[in-house]
């Protein structure tokens, strides 16, 4: 009986000891992400153009069209059609006089009808042999905000020892906000298949002169993974912990 009890107790102790000595291993992984949209029916993609507004320093229509085409050429299996960007703002307001400028988000409402114009997109699709059509809106707006920011400051005590301390200061900051909406249209039917939105902002110290175009590209860089993951598979690198 004593021997049996000793065996049982040693087994329990072994289990507890095992649990207590868990070893960990950090391991790199690559998570493959399937595209959100099934584009297997298309061989070609037409980045048609965008309804764009906000800053006058950047032509959101031309720059976005150019950038997306170059990204799709490098990172998607679809053949990218080279064509002039469509003047969608004029198309949307055809017969209604001059297209009102887009300064803020609500101004885009005046143009939303163009994306639902099935006949128009079907015609464009026929013209380019029924590709996948990428279009949408791009708002790139200057931002100015006064806020309390934390920065690090060097201080020296009476013994001359250097220390870095966080200092909170009230600062004027300037920058840009980018809010694109990507719309994917089936060039065979002219109907919207999918749409995705993003919003990114960047702020600099007011005395820092950063060109609008460089901010635009910096913000687009953040948005591009979302856009590309709609059309092509991606791999996201990371690390995880394996346990023993």
């Amino acid at each position, binding site marked *: 009986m004593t021997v049996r009890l000793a065996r049982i107790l040693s087994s329990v102790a072994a289990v507890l000891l095992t649990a207590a000595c868990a070893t960990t291993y950090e391991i790199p992984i690559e*998570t493959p992400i399937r595209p959100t949209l099934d584009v297997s029916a298309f061989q070609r993609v037409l980045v048609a153009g965008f309804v764009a507004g906000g800053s006058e320093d950047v032509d959101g229509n031309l720059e976005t069209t150019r950038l997306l085409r170059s990204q799709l050429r490098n990172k998607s299996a679809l053949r990218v059609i080279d064509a002039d960007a469509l003047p969608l703002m004029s198309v949307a307001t055809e017969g209604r006089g001059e297209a009102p400028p887009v300064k803020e988000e609500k101004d885009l409402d005046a143009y939303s009808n163009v994306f639902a114009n099935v006949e128009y997109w079907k015609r464009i699709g026929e013209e380019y042999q029924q590709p996948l059509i990428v279009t949408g809106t791009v708002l790139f707006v200057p931002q100015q905000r006064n806020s309390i920011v934390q920065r690090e400051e060097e201080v020296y005590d009476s013994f001359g020892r250097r220390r870095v301390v966080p200092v909170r200061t009230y600062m004027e900051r300037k920058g840009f906000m980018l809010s694109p909406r990507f719309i994917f249209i089936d060039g065979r039917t002219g109907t919207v298949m999918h749409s995705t939105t993003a919003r990114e902002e960047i702020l600099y110290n007011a005395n820092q002169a950063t060109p609008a175009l460089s901010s635009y590209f910096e913000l687009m860089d953040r948005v591009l993974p979302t856009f590309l993951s709609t059309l092509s598979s991606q791999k996201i690198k990371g690390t995880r912990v394996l346990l*023993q």
Partner: protein
Amino acid sequence: MPYRALLVAVLVVLASAPAFADARSDARKQVEFGILVAQKGLWREAIYRWERATQLDPTYAAAHNNLAVAYEHEGDLEKARGAYEKAIELEPGNAQIKQNYELFREINDRTTRKDSQ
């Protein structure tokens, strides 16, 4: 009388301990081998080993965690979520499992966030 019942209960629990220890020990061997092959990039073999470990000992949180990592690496995000949730259910206080799960959710949320029409 109540003491006798208590004694019987304690003995039943203790008697099952060797079987539990054996299952955990076998599962642990599978987990160790799984880690070894995963480190060499043989993730499918690792999945096989960790699935075996969870069958041998369904209460082994580390096996479920590792399985979740492997599913994630293979792009099977639904299975990964299930395995992470099981691991957390078994060991709610394990910070490493929670950290893995948080990182997983970041990716998973990104892929499921859409406003399609």
